[in-house]
């Protein structure tokens, strides 16, 4: 089979599979962004128990492979009666995983906002919640943008792991196609190229953001 012929067979399914992967990544990123912020705030909370729990959460999730987390959620929970589809399990697992990394990203961002900002806001009579919402968070978010971008890129690449619990992503479709066509090398190279086309421009954006951040400080 010529490559042109192969391409005519695979390009459409791979395109849609890539979209599916991006959807998984985006959903997981949203979970991670929201949950991560909560964890970061818990971690920085003066309440000892709360911050310890947050640390344990972060260390647990950062200490185990994403694959094992997916296995735990998909197979492990099923055995005790909590059933998710492989797609749900993938999104939840990758989202939880991202939340641990993002919590640390947020924390670094929050800690990078100068103390004087809080003091100045308190001095003009803002309440704690207001200070956080209107003064500290916007600045922290700006600082955190490049590392958030890096987490997003990792997430896109990590969606490939979802194929190992048979979630319908780009890699799973590639596996199917390669067993149908017996052209694994060509197909995985094309798939690699697809990931590259998505991730490389993003990494350029992140680098530009990093440069801009460096110039500001």
């Amino acid at each position: 089979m010529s490559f042109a012929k192969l391409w005519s067979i695979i390009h459409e399914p791979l395109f849609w599979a890539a979209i599916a992967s991006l959807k998984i990544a985006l959903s997981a990123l949203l979970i991670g962004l929201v949950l991560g912020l909560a964890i970061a705030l818990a971690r920085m909370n003066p309440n000892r128990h709360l911050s310890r729990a947050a640390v344990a959460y972060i260390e647990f999730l950062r200490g185990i492979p994403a694959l094992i987390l997916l296995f735990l959620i998909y197979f492990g929970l099923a055995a005790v009666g909590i059933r998710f589809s492989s797609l749900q399990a993938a999104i939840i697992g990758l989202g939880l995983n991202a939340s641990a990394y993002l919590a640390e990203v947020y924390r670094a961002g929050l800690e990078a906002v100068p103390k004087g900002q809080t003091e100045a806001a308190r001095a003009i009579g803002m309440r704690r919640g207001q200070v956080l919402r209107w003064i500290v968070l916007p600045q922290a978010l700006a600082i955190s943008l490049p590392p958030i971008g890096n987490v997003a890129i990792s997430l896109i690449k990590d969606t490939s792991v979802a194929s190992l619990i048979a979630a319908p992503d780009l890699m799973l479709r590639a596996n199917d196609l390669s067993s149908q066509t017996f052209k694994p090398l060509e197909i995985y190279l094309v798939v690699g190229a697809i990931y590259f086309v998505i991730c490389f421009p993003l990494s350029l954006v992140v680098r530009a953001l990093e440069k801009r951040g460096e110039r500001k400080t």
Partner: protein
Amino acid sequence: MMDGAVVTPEMLLYLLRTLLIGAGATIWLTAASLVVAVVLGFGLALMRLSDSKVLQGIARVYLEIFRNIPILTQLFVIYFGLSRYGIMLPATVAATLGFGLNGASMLSEVFRSAILSVDRGQREAGLAIGLTSRQAFRLLILPQAARTAIPPIGNYAIGLLKDTSLASAVAVPEIAMRAKMLVAETYLSTEIYMMVAVVYLALSLPLARLTALAERRFSPHRSAA
């Protein structure tokens, strides 16, 4: 609970023993891949720091390709892709190569910035006492860069340790693979994957502590000024 095997102490012991054998393979795979990644990564860093635009370009292209494609895809290219064309690497070799090639792209940046972070005055002071450029690099720049590089290498090693779980997809008998086989055998998926998680934590948390320690010791590196 499903109609799986009964969790007796003997059963637990059996699971644990099998998983620990897998953990041994995980450690080996991690160590071997790390060696490949360090050696290749150092070579790439030297290429990027060389005066040759061609070498710089090659290194840049290599780096961007390997960093922007999932490691799982890279493993599949090497293991399934190449075998279709008669290059049949044993699974462990393919995995070591895959993680090593991928890691080289990560570590080359670590080495490059570590080398660049050494104060220019160090090289100049070396030249001033009559060292050649090579000697100054080997005796002054490298030892100092190595200290700076240790914490990020540690962080990379933690990531690598976890990534090696993907080798289960190309049938390397590391811990995740063993776990899958045990689950197929006993249906005790919750227990087994929890145990696997604990084993990974037992490996990665001390490594993270060590790295944090190295960070405090080396990162704001001893400076003469």
